[in-house]
């Protein structure tokens, strides 16, 4: 992003302007990070993988919300439900038609995309708060349909899913190989999202977010832009849901409650609005918190006695919401902003600013 550059750095030709990363140092670091992510499972057991795979899946979902909310400024309270639609798409196609995972995966993105566009239609006439209501209603409608269309979705019991079949001689039944698949898809999706922000569409997202009337005056088709934002964001959510569901090999309605949609929004705030780094940071922090709260559950049991199940449920609710609220009150721009400050102070080291 141009705005984050230090003063006095310009692009002198189109190749420079197209580059995602300018300096060799950053390119090396990025390459090291990617290689490191691929090498991580060698040092970790199943426990590490059980953390990394959901982190990757949630990163994709978070990128989707970043596109809807962070870039386009449309509040979505139904993101977890769209993720659920992605999961159920794969589950239903496998259960009733026996399709392979590879065929289901794109559909798991496209069906939530169309649904999201449909529920995004009210966005043409309304904005801000009203849109939160529309997506809230979308959440309840989707959950109702999944709960009650028993012949197709198996109701509240949920259904089994299959992991992808063998491809190019790689068997994805093992967690490690499945991690490589999820990581690769995450990297591709992150790359696409990064580039989306630089395209015409991505720039019109930002214009609509900052001032939709000004954007309209400048000739941006607001209706198209908003609906595209919903579509693309829900596509990401669907893919995230499909990958996450296939990891657990099980789909259940209990995985996308209203809480989860709110956590999506909240941890997006914790990560930081309007940047890819913010989305990734949000997803990572969320999953680490998840892990912490399961670690703390025994403590809660100790203090609260018998009602341990409810204590842990209450604890995670209180804990997450306090973290998000405190972040919003004290650092409304999130971790991404802090990271920029750290980078700037490193660059300008001897001087304070």
């Amino acid at each position, binding site marked *: 992003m141009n705005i984050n550059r230090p003063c006095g750095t310009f692009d002198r030709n189109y190749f420079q302007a197209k580059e995602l990363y300018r300096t060799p140092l950053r390119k090396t670091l990025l390459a090291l990070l990617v290689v490191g992510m691929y090498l991580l499972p060698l040092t970790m057991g199943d426990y590490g993988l059980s953390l990394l795979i959901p982190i990757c899946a949630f990163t994709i979902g978070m990128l989707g919300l970043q596109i809807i*909310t962070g870039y386009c*400024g449309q*509040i979505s*309270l139904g993101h977890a439900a769209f993720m659920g639609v992605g999961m159920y798409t794969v589950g239903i196609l496998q259960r009733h038609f026996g399709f392979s995972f590879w065929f289901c995966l794109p559909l798991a993105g496209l069906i939530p995309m169309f649904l999201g566009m449909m*529920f995004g*239609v*009210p966005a043409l*006439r*309304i904005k*801000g*708060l*009203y849109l*939160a*209501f*529309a997506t*809230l*209603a*979308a959440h*309840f*409608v989707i959950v*109702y349909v999944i*709960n*009650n269309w*028993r012949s197709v979705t198996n109701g509240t019991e949920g259904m089994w899913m299959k992991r992808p079949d063998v491809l190019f001689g790689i068997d994805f039944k093992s967690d490690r190989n499945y991690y490589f698949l999820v990581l690769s898809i995450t990297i591709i999706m992150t790359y696409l999202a990064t580039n989306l922000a630089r395209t015409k569409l991505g720039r019109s997202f930002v214009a609509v977010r900052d*001032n939709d*009337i*000004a954007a309209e*005056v400048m000739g941006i088709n607001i209706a198209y832009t908003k609906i595209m934002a919903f579509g693309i964001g829900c596509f990401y959510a669907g893919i995230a849901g499909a990958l996450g569901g296939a990891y657990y090999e099980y789909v259940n309605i209990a995985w996308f409650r209203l*809480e989860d949609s*709110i956590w999506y*929004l*909240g941890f997006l*705030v914790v990560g930081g*609005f309007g940047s890819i780094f913010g989305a990734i940071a949000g997803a990572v922090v969320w999953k680490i918190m998840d892990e912490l709260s399961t670690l703390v559950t025994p403590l809660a049991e100790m203090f*609260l006695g018998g*009602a341990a*199940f*409810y*204590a842990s*449920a*209450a*604890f*995670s*609710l*209180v804990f*997450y*919401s*306090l973290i*998000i*609220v405190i972040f*919003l*009150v004290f650092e*409304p721009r999130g971790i991404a902003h802090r990271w920029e400050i750290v980078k700037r102070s490193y660059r300008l080291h001897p001087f304070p600013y």
Partner: protein
Amino acid sequence: MEETTKSIVLGLCSGGIYALLAVSYVVIYKSTRVFPFSQAAVLIIGAYFMWFCLIVWHLPIWLGFLMTCAVGAILGMAIERAFMRPLVGQPILAPIVVTLCLMLLLRGIGILMGKGNIEGFGESFLPVGAWKFGFLHLPKIQVYGFILCMVLIAALMLFYAKTRAGLGMRVVHEDHVVAQNLGVNVKRIFQYSWVISCIIAVIVGMLLGNIQGVGLSLDLNGLIAIAAVLFGGLESFAGAIIAGLAIGILQMLTIQFIAPLLPGETTMMAPFVFLLLILFIKPYGLFGLVRIERL
């Protein structure tokens, strides 16, 4: 026809509670321009606290009622001071996320208070039984609840119309800057709004706890009332009352006509489908203000 009349009358009775809840949303939205999703969970807190007073501490009903109202007032004051005031002037997303998170925070506290169990008040504090008017069987609990809601709304309207603080609140509803210039303490008014709204919410929590049992699912009523607020228009008390009653009737008619056709919780669903329809057809509700913006 008899059945339909019955549904409409019963719907009116249960709609009184939605009307009161919708008013509690409008009180805050009108003065602070923040939509308080958290009120849905304040219901839970109110109901559980009343349960503590009556069942655990064996207090008389009037004392329990007063103490619960006091808790509501303190809660409202605390929320406004600790979470909402630092966010004044932030982009619209920040307060929305905060009130949503507060909803979950209060829900978590509700779980801790009741250990996740569904409790009852033992003996209902409103009269039980039913009146018979021909084919109509009116449960007294519902009728008294309706009357209480209407009395509270009337009292609130009187407060707005007759007192000095109410006058200040009406000014703040119009414009924050103008109010500030006229010497109204806008922050104080925000605090009043949260306190009033939270007191209303805990009272509704008590009423609903009396009817439905004290449990975590009470907040669904709060979410349904959101549909009422939107139908009436976010800025209108009259709209909130009419729409609250309408949502009550809609639910009862759903039970009569749609529930036999569809599986599952259709009464829960109908208000949200209705909400979507409103957003498609008349997004600013019956009496909502359509703000004309310019650059």
